């Protein structure tokens, strides 16, 4: 097994800068996710590590080996890096059977015939494809093809496995199932996994640690899923990890109001925050679940614009102080006997109690939007 280390790596296509001066180290045996919006260069990052692309600057190490450095004129080709890659489109070879696909890396490594056959069958078992060995890929479902790709990546016992959105073409149930299988495989084999995705749910579920990458190809935050979810460093990270409300807030005549309306924000505000509010225009961020709807007249007032019943949750769009706020309530909560009758209809006036708010400077949020 091996660690991966990127030092001041940059990559551009012509004048187009994809990655600028990126540094990160992923220790041996970790499941690490690069999470970012599409087009942020995360796939390029993976291709740089795999060796399909050469960086324009900086150095890449796998274990203690320097594999890419333009300055030292070193570029170890992909086949010599002892990695394996699972591609977004699976890249299962259509002219080879499941068995032939999976045994291929061992054939290339000239592993002894009997051992190769044994390891291939073991890999087929690992990815639950028993009995499908002689099928051709067109006879397989998407999920099965995906598992062929995984099996092929595992069979050679690589030091590092690179996965590029391997779940994005699967349906929701299968995605969840494969998510667990990948995690399980990693635990059993101890391989270092680098996973690239734009799907925050998968990232949170699968990673030991993760990095959030922005549209300019820079890392915004690195940490465990819990750290990042609970303590996002900025509004970009916050926004990327789920549905989010950004509510502009002003402090006037001893009161805290939504934007420049007369609607009072129902949330305890510390002295320190008040002085911040006096100096800067601040924006309050919260998730749809961080708000509790009540009929209580003292809470922040709003009008239900749209209501959607989504099974376990009810989703509202509420207009308050000229802003639209997304709120979601668990169905158990609204059926709570004590607070019964808490399903609201369009046009109802409601009270919003804010359970948790995060504070961002207005100009930072504006910058993200532009």
């Amino acid at each position, binding site marked *: 097994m091996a660690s991966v280390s990127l030092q001041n790596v940059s990559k551009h296509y012509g004048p187009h800068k994809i990655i600028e001066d990126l540094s990160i180290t992923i220790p041996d045996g970790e499941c690490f996710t690069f999470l970012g919006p599409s087009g942020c260069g995360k796939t390029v990052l993976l291709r740089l590590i795999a060796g399909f692309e050469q960086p324009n600057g900086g150095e890449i190490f796998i274990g203690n080996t320097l594999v890419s450095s333009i300055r030292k004129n070193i570029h170890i080709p992909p086949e010599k890096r002892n990695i394996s890659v699972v591609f977004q*489109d699976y*890249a299962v070879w259509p002219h080879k059977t499941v068995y032939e696909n999976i045994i291929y890396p061992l054939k*290339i490594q000239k592993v002894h015939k009997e051992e190769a056959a044994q390891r291939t069958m073991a890999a087929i078992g690992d990815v639950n494809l028993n009995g499908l060995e002689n099928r051709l890929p067109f006879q397989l479902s998407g999920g099965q093809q995906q598992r062929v790709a995984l099996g092929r990546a595992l069979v050679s016992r690589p030091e590092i496995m690179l996965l590029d959105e391997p779940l994005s073409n699967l349906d929701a149930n299968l995605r969840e199932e494969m998510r667990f299988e990948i995690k399980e495989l990693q635990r059993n084999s101890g391989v270092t996994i680098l996973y690239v995705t734009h799907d925050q749910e998968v990232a949170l579920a699968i990673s030991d640690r993760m990095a959030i990458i922005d549209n300019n190809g820079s890392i915004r935050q690195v940490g465990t899923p819990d750290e990042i979810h609970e303590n996002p460093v900025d509004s970009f990270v916050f926004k990327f990890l789920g549905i989010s409300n950004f509510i502009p807030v002003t402090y006037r005549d001893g009161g805290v109001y939504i934007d420049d309306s007369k609607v009072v924000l129902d949330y305890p505000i510390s002295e320190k925050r008040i002085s911040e509010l006096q100096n800067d225009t601040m924006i309050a961020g919260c998730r749809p679940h961080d708000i509790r709807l009540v009929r209580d007249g003292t809470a922040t007032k709003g009008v239900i614009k749209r209501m959607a019943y989504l099974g376990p949750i009810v989703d509202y769009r509420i207009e308050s102080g000229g802003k639209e706020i997304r709120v979601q309530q668990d169905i158990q909560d609204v059926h709570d006997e004590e607070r019964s009758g808490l399903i609201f209809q369009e046009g109802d006036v409601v009270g919003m109690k804010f359970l948790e708010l995060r504070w961002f400077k207005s100009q930072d949020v504006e910058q993200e939007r532009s």
Partner: protein
Amino acid sequence: MFSRYFKKIGIAEILLFLSVLVLVVVVAIPMLLIFWNALFVEGQFNVTDIIQVLSQKDTYEALKNSIIIAIGVTFFSTILGVFFAWLVSRTDLPLKSTMKLMFLVPFMLPSFIGALAWKILLSPRSGLLNKFIMNIFGLENSPFDIYSLWGIIAVESMYLFPFVFIQVSGALERMDPTLEESARISGANLFTITRRITLPLMLPSIAAGALLVALYSLAHFGVPAILGTEKGIYNIPTKIYEKIYASAGSFQAIRTGTVLSSILVISAGCILYLQSLVLKAGRFQVIAGKSMRPMLLKLRGLKMPLLIFSILYILITVVLPTVTIFLVGTLKTYGLTLTLENMTLKNIQYILFDWKLTKDAIWNSFYISLAAAFVTMIVGTLISYVIVKMKVRGKFILEFLGVLPFSVPGTVIALGVILMWSGKFGINLYNTAWIIFVAYIARYMAFSLKSNSAALEQVHDSLEEAARACGATHWQALRDIVIPLVKPGMVAAFFLIFLPALRELTTSVLLYGPTTRTIGVAIYTLNEDGETVYACTLASVALIIIIVGHSIIKRITRSGMEKVM
């Protein structure tokens, strides 16, 4: 130190170098030589000479004829192609799928063999059909004269209209029927819809097909050579041929040839450019990916008349000429009536086993085509691989060179090859089979590139990268993944070259020597020498080979597709 340099020159650079080398030697240099010879006299830039060449009566007559023929053929082919395409894809004509196949048959028939048949049928004095009609109606003079511009235009149109037919019927089948349905819901009747919606949407496809016909017709040798030269009607390719043969390759003749060739190349380039513009403009969202069921026009009372008309068209343009060739090919002497006692199969035996000239021709065509098809297939795969898959600096040179073969007519290739390989540059291949072989490579490279790059585009980059990530070197990835996947495309390319090359006339007629006639050349020269019967016998053999070959292709490409898809 050295090893570092060596590392820099990887497989990518080697492949790029080889591909560029082949294209430069086989296509680019001959082309440059043509332009050079047209523009420079004894190393001096000279335009007045060009004007002088063009102001000679026979040159500008040829130019004028080429243009008239191209316009006429394009016009009639477009009408025929659009009409039949609409008939088989948008009406309830009976036997549609059979008719569709039948309309593609003229594509397989070499047009110069068609011209030969029509010469036998409609030549003013001895034409079989002419005599037949004169007998029935008691006419003094023959009603048709195939030795005319009209004759040439008619025969070329018969065999070129499938270009338009394929383009338009393909587009009609892929067109999103909701576009028409919404017009119908808005209250338009079918005639209005056809005129206001369908036809405008089809215009890019129609134009693309028509331009293809124009390109082909402008540079076409076979039909004008057989039907025109008798009465002194020349177009550019036949004029070039006549000049070079009349003067046995004198400088002045070569010069006229290069000037005319330059004009051909430039017009071909313009036509191709126009076509790319038209196709680009036509890329608005009319064509849905899947084929859907469009609404069909009910022909009602016209159903049978239109079916009979279509069948008659096929009978007259395909069956009649083919049967004529086969029957005349068995006659004991030309001019005898077509009755059983005048026929003999000895002719076939004679040309296949006894007569050196035809035996040589068949053998020459076979091995030259086989070798050329093989080499062109391999080189075409290499070049397409570099163009489609590789990221190497300098690729754009290859992309440019790769487009060249598409715009170079056969006559021009022949002339370029003569300039390059007749000893001026140290190698003299003139009068050998090699010169035809080289010319075929240049002529058919475009087919190979088209077929192979289409196949390669189907092979997603990640398939090859997956092999690399599994530890395979570039060569191993090519051997194990890429080549097996493009094999059907390569086989298709091979046959797409081999079959047309087998019956090639335009290029080889300028290049053949005493012992290097090809089948096409042999048929043409036999006809010129008045050996009409043997010309037909050889043509029958060629037709049989072509039909067998096409059915083999069909089987191979179909099974290849099934495996991969």
